């Protein structure tokens, strides 16, 4: 892991999270440098989503600290981490069901441009926001459904919107929680394309079970097992790692 020559954007040190007596995350340290393409893999229940929740502030760590651009953000509430450039997507769609994709993006953008408290101007009154909305809708193939209520959208479209929302926040660090999970084969290509086309300067932490995507995408990988880091390294090293194989084969065997 030779990251010292690059600027570290996000780093977590010694994160521990306990629920009652159960340790969900045990002493995890992780760092992302600028423009990173980092994958977080591990069997089900390894604590990947918990880790994301800790990083984004949905959960408070029992121990350890988190730094974003060198500043300690361990105690910051979730929305302030977003303001500082760390944005996530969700494994299970978390969308605004009664709003349209257009409204969703417009409101996300207005919040992002600090217009969230403006109550005297109508939504859609701002040129910059409208244009950016149109760009994003194009980019994520949502233009033709932009005026449909989100809850009526096809699953793949909702998945796309999930990522579009995150990108609307212009993240410097993007945490993608299983972006292609559950997407039917037909709608998959669109999604994969958008993930690989993410802007270069954005540091991405990807959680994914789809190993094709992971190995195509990631330049660095962390393997999480039972809430702790098993190993970390570049894809080749991970692919050859016996321990990792054992874990995956072991769990595979257990499933099979």
């Amino acid at each position, binding site marked *: 892991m030779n990251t010292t020559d690059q600027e570290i954007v996000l780093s977590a040190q010694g994160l521990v999270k306990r629920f009652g007596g159960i340790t969900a995350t045990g002493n995890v340290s992780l760092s992302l440098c600028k423009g990173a393409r980092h994958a977080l893999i591990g069997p089900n229940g390894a604590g990947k989503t918990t880790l994301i929740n800790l990083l*984004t502030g*949905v959960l408070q760590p029992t121990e350890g600290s988190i730094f974003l651009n060198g500043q300690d953000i361990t105690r910051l*509430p*979730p*929305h*302030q981490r*977003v*303001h500082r450039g760390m*944005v*996530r997507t*969700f494994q299970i769609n*978390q*969308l*605004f*069901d*009664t*709003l*349209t994709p*257009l*409204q*969703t993006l*417009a*409101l*996300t953008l*207005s*919040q*992002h441009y600090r*217009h*969230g*408290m*403006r*109550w*005297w*101007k*109508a*939504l*859609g*009154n701002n*040129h910059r926001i*409208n*244009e950016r*909305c*149109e760009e994003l*809708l194009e980019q994520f193939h949502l*233009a*033709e459904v*932009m*005026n449909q209520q989100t809850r009526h959208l096809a699953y793949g479209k909702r998945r796309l919107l999930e990522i579009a*929302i*995150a990108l*609307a*926040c212009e993240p410097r660090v993007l945490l993608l929680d299983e972006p292609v999970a559950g997407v039917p084969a037909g709608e998959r290509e669109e999604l994969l394309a958008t993930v690989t086309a993410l802007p270069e300067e954005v540091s991405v932490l990807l959680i994914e079970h789809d190993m094709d995507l992971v190995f195509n995408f990631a330049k660095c990988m962390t393997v999480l097992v039972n809430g702790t880091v098993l190993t970390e390294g570049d894809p080749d090293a991970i692919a050859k790692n016996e321990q990792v194989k054992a874990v995956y084969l072991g769990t595979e065997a257990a499933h099979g």
Partner: protein
Amino acid sequence: MESASLSLQAHSRWKHLETVFWLFALLSPWLLAKHALIINEIVIVALFALSLDLILGYTGIVSLGHAAFFGFGAYSAALFAIHVMPDPLLGLLFGAGISLLLGALCSVLILRGSDLTRLMVTLAVALILKELSNKLSWLTGGTDGLQGVMMGPVLGKFDFDIRGITAAWYSLAVTFLLFLLIRRLVHSPFGATLTAIRDNRLRAMAIGIPVSTRIAVIYSISAAIAGAAGALLAQTSSFASPDVFAFDRSADILLILVIGGTGWLYGGIIGAIVFKLLQDVISSITPEYWTFWIGAFLIALVIVGRERFLYPWKWFAKR
């Protein structure tokens, strides 16, 4: 592709029929002079329901104690008239302002917990205030109510008359202005973030919306508007009694809003018109048993469906 700006602003643009409705409403004390009193009451209830719609319909915060702010506004305005000055507009501002502060204080209580928790906490606040208004009789007149409220003329010109015409104009004008503000607000970026909070708090946080602050802000605004409605009641009836905090009032306003439908501004207004007129008409026919028919109406409304009930011509369309 249709332009984003057009689509986004489609909702906030005034529709013709909306304009006609408000024209009719504003002229109603003149057109229906005989019924100015009930118009006044309906308008006040509608404004109160509108304030609840802001938190329930747009932000998803349930409350069974919104009368807390209504009553607080009523007492504040009445006391202002007695001890400071009888000018209605200043009293109204005072009532709304005081309720705003109370709303800000109470917003701490409703941030956590489930819907049931919020229902009960808001309810408890209203009931505690009711008990206070009963106990602090040196200030509030206790159970007998606050007497001797003498209101000055509106804008120094229009005296409140016994037929209730001035009262109806006054309430209508205030309600219309507040409606304009509310309408602006819900169609703004701020309003959109509220809807976002209602639909999905987790995601709202994840796009950088400070959820707790937003809820506190809108709760305070809603409280101020409820307070304004209460102030209108106290001013137009020159009276306030602990009853303004009653559980029934909070529950009725919830019913009224839900009758008309939440989250589209006109729900509370339609609910107020329907509920109050039904109550007035039925209870003048059968003073003892009118609740039976109101109950039957509510059940029918739910079973048949609000849309089809209030707009029967849609019934056929849907089949």
